[in-house]
């Protein structure tokens, strides 16, 4: 079974926000909800790198673990989805998520957040695949149509790659080989587990 993963290649990402608006477009995501966002480190100085981030569909997903109503579930492709009919908008998933992926339509007081929304890996939700109800609550179900996430498909520089983890890793590996350096993959340790995941970034351990 394919295991869906994201990679954002910081050597390529140019902070063009194509992925962000592709997502908005495909899933009709409202103002204020950013399923995907782009972050630039070392902005304006040599060494600047940008990275596009959304839900990483973690293997041992913290959001899932803390949800009081257990509305998360994982598809066979490893995509972490949730059920908005069940979600109570408590915000716990957003506290737990290392990547800040869960979003809420309102920033309101009294904890009024509305139902959580996050990247679905363009795989919809629990409703019937491709149904209107699914679309209205979760956006498109591209995976069911045999397509990959809109954000990755439209990425202006092919920095953002999505799909079967093995294929993604292979593409990325090829690039790394071409460049000869820079095999760090954004967020994979945290999201998909590695011997280092969840361990402190020990100074000097990474080269």
């Amino acid at each position: 079974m394919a295991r869906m993963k994201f990679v954002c290649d910081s050597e390529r990402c140019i902070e063009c926000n194509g992925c962000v608006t592709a997502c908005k477009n495909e899933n009709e995501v409202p103002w204020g909800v950013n399923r995907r966002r782009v972050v630039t480190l070392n902005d304006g100085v040599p060494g600047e790198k940008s990275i596009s981030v959304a839900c990483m569909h973690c293997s041992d997903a913290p959001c899932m673990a803390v949800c009081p109503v257990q509305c998360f579930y994982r598809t066979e492709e490893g995509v972490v989805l949730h059920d908005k009919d069940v979600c109570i908008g408590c915000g716990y998933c957003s506290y737990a998520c290392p990547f800040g992926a869960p979003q809420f339509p309102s920033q309101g007081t009294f904890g009024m957040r509305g139902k959580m929304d996050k990247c679905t890996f363009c795989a919809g939700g629990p409703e019937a695949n491709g149904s209107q109800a699914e679309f209205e609550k979760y956006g498109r179900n591209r995976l069911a149509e045999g397509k990959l996430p809109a954000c990755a498909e439209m990425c202006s520089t092919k920095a953002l790659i999505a799909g079967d983890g093995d294929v993604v890793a292979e593409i990325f590996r090829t690039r790394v080989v071409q460049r000869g350096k820079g095999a760090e993959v954004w967020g994979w340790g945290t999201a998909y587990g590695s011997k280092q995941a969840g361990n402190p970034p020990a100074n000097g351990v990474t080269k």
Partner: protein
Amino acid sequence: MLLTPRKSGASAAAPTSPFIHSLRRGLANALPTLDRRTFLRRSGIGVGVGLAASQLTLMRKATAADGAQPAIGAGKVEVRRTVCSHCSVGCASDAVVENGVWVRQEPVFDSPINLGSHCAKGAALREHGHGEFRLRYPMKLVNGKYERISWDTALQEVTDRIKALRDASGPDSVYWIGSSKHNNEQAYLLRKFVSFFGSNNCDHQARICHSTTVAGVANTWGYGAMTNSYNDMRNAKVALYIGSNAAEAHPVSMLHLLHAKERGCKVIVVDPRFTRTAAKSDEYVRIRSGSDIAFLFGILHHIFKNGWEDKKYLNDRVFGMAKVRDEVMAKWTPDKVEEACGVPEAQVLKVATWLNENRPGTIVWCMGQTQHTIGNAIVRASCILQLALGNVGKSGGGTNIFRGHDNVQGATDVGPNPDSLPSYYGLVEGSWRHFANVWGVEYDWIKSKFASPAMMTKPGITLSRWIDGVLEKNELIDQDSNLRGVVYWGHSPNSQTRGLEMKKAMDKLELLVVVDPYPSATAAMAAMPGAEVNPNRAVYLLPACTQFETSGSVTASNRSIQWREKVIEPLWESRPDHMIMYQFAQKLGFGSELVKNYKMQKVKGMDEPVPEDILREINRSCWAAGYTGQSPERLQAHMRNMGAFDVRTLKAKGPLKDKINGYDIGGDYFGLPWPCYGTPELKHPGSPNLYDTSKHVMDGGGNFRANFGVERDGQNLLAEDGSHSVGADITTGYPELDHLLLKKLGWWDELNDTEKKAAEGKNWKTDPSGGMIRVFMKNHGCHPFGNAKARAIVWNFPDPIPQHREPLYGNRPDLAAKYPTHNDVKTFWRLPTLYKSVQEKNIADKVAEKFPYILTSGRLVEYEGGGEETRSNPWLAELQQEMFIEINPKVAAGKGIRNGDRAWVHTPTGAKLNVQALVTERVGPDTVFMPFHFSGHWQGVDMLPYYPKGAAPIVRGEAINTATTYGYDIVTMMQETKSTICNVEKA
């Protein structure tokens, strides 16, 4: 990538009992979950960015325009292929249309240009199918408020007003601002329209964009366009970006560059700012804005010093380099270079070494070079550098000049220019006759429309100066009347400099017409109370369609022409531009002449010229730029079979017959990049890289153009012996093709009889049969525009060898003394134009002490141009909600400005802008930067009350051009938007 459809997985804990199950279902139905509708409504509250209640509608917003909302998947689904309407990269996109509603946007992986990729703007195209903040119906300004009127009334009143102006003050009293957003057919039709109206007073964005490039480069070697392509950059071994921020302005081009980079291409970025492009560079060079010549000649100094120039190439194909060399060696020694542009010798040498060691190498430039009083000279310096390295006319080399708007290239080639007819035919009588012939009207009839024969051949006022056409003293201008009416037909006001004076000019007008899907910036500026408003002024807003509500061709920066299919029917009451032109023409009395060669089609029950027919007329007239081979059929076949084109070479593997029209695209280059010479039947494949002698002319090869004579100062201007395109029967330089040459060569008889008749007395540009081109190219492998040398010295320009000159408003009076600007010019494009008097006064007044920072401006990836359109798109607007100024931390600290604070920006015009401070290392301490896409605030005040109701963009901010200063290029009237001065204070 293999995908397996997800099984509809229910929540982890499935309901257990049937009772609970039914209860659950009942509940789910009774209490609808927070769907997107609710999301939106919720988020509208407390967002504070002015998301009005009106845009709470949902996914198929467009249905609001025409009623019912069909269920998903229930309707007829069609896929229409279109092209992004924002920048010149020309990314293709598939629009999925269901029951006439644009419901989805799919990437076109087949497109060799973008391989499915999009930047933020392109990925948000579908919002055009909603168009919620657009002008929905014609409006008229009545007592300071915009009121709805009918189209009939609007057309009648506008044309009555125009007629009145023409009768009272002559046709030159109306100024027509066309658009680079128009497709080729519309841009061409507008030039034809203005000609029939009897004027050359028309222009479009290219004036304030790449006019200096077009003039400077064309005068160097032939055509003023990007020589190679984005795709060809994959072949480069080194890329020098100087004055281009492609990562934000041409994001998808980076796809190709980064590919090259991964294969070892060195990337150098030269810019006053550390841009997103600089972040991808191997070497970043910070220069002082406006000092590019110093830097480029600094490199050249090292090249000559070390003998790195391509001597054979220079001998065979370049004129005048020796003189340039002498000047560079004498004037641009490393110390002078460092003094002028701030770059130390070691870094200049490093860049020179890289350029020498890695060939072919390409140079990329854009607004950082063009928008200066010396823009024409800067771009020529770039050309000279590439010539010295022998990089021009080679795959992987060339001058990759990234054009601006989606169709600025096409509008430049065939659109409304004040100094030429379509395809760069000058305003001389011969050109007029050529076009009269194609248009099927009498030359004398056109002439009768003009104020005088002299006005017919006199270039019009430029877009950058229309305000002076209004405000300047009548006796100082070179036409009878001042401008009294202006038609903004797809252009924003906040993109032209000197906003304060523009407001005055707008108030003084008799007539202001805005034809635009988003006319709001102009509308608000006009409606805003002014000091002295002409009591008789009339202001009309007419809703135009976007490019997704019509079809037509669009020329990308690499000269590839793509065909857009119509995606949706015109939204609201909008009409396509060419329909409006026709309707104007009918009322003005030349409707039937305008559309003589076109069939009509019904759109919304009204007549509209068929775009394909307009293109066919372009094909029959625009020989000079090679717009003749691109028939609609060929272009459409290319669009349907994009996948066949190679990404690296753009060439189609063939044979491959299009399923619909049977055209075989085999051997063609994608989009038949112009010049695609001869008739469509000649099957010229288009020219992927210009001046490339390694290819046969019938395979897109070529050489430099013979456009400047055959000899100068006793030196041969034609190519030397042995320098010619592959397979040419003439193996040395030769002049451009005309009937005499053909006869002299003894090839005349290869023409058939009809061709002979048509060609007699003509040259290749005016021969309506295309026969001479056929014989010359196909039979003999020769290039119709001749085979000559490129010019390192452009003797017909004020500075034949590019000279560095300081901007009029600079913060370095010491340098201005050494590198002073030009002398004032009394009449220049019909207007007096100042240089020295302004610069000297500024120095005398010590203006630099009051305004110590260089103010430069440019682009943000999310917004396009003046920005009303993109700031009306919520998907984009959310990403950039504030107009800001980039300030170096050192400067900010000195002024107590912290990141996110408000700041006042003052400029010598007296304007003050209230903007957010972005404290960042992107700029050095001597420079500040502001994006230019904002409008809707005027010196601290929100202009919202002056917008037509419902048509204000979501995000508004100060327009930088409210505050920009005087200054124009000495050749083209390009406005100086990249270097002026300002002061910043904490607000």
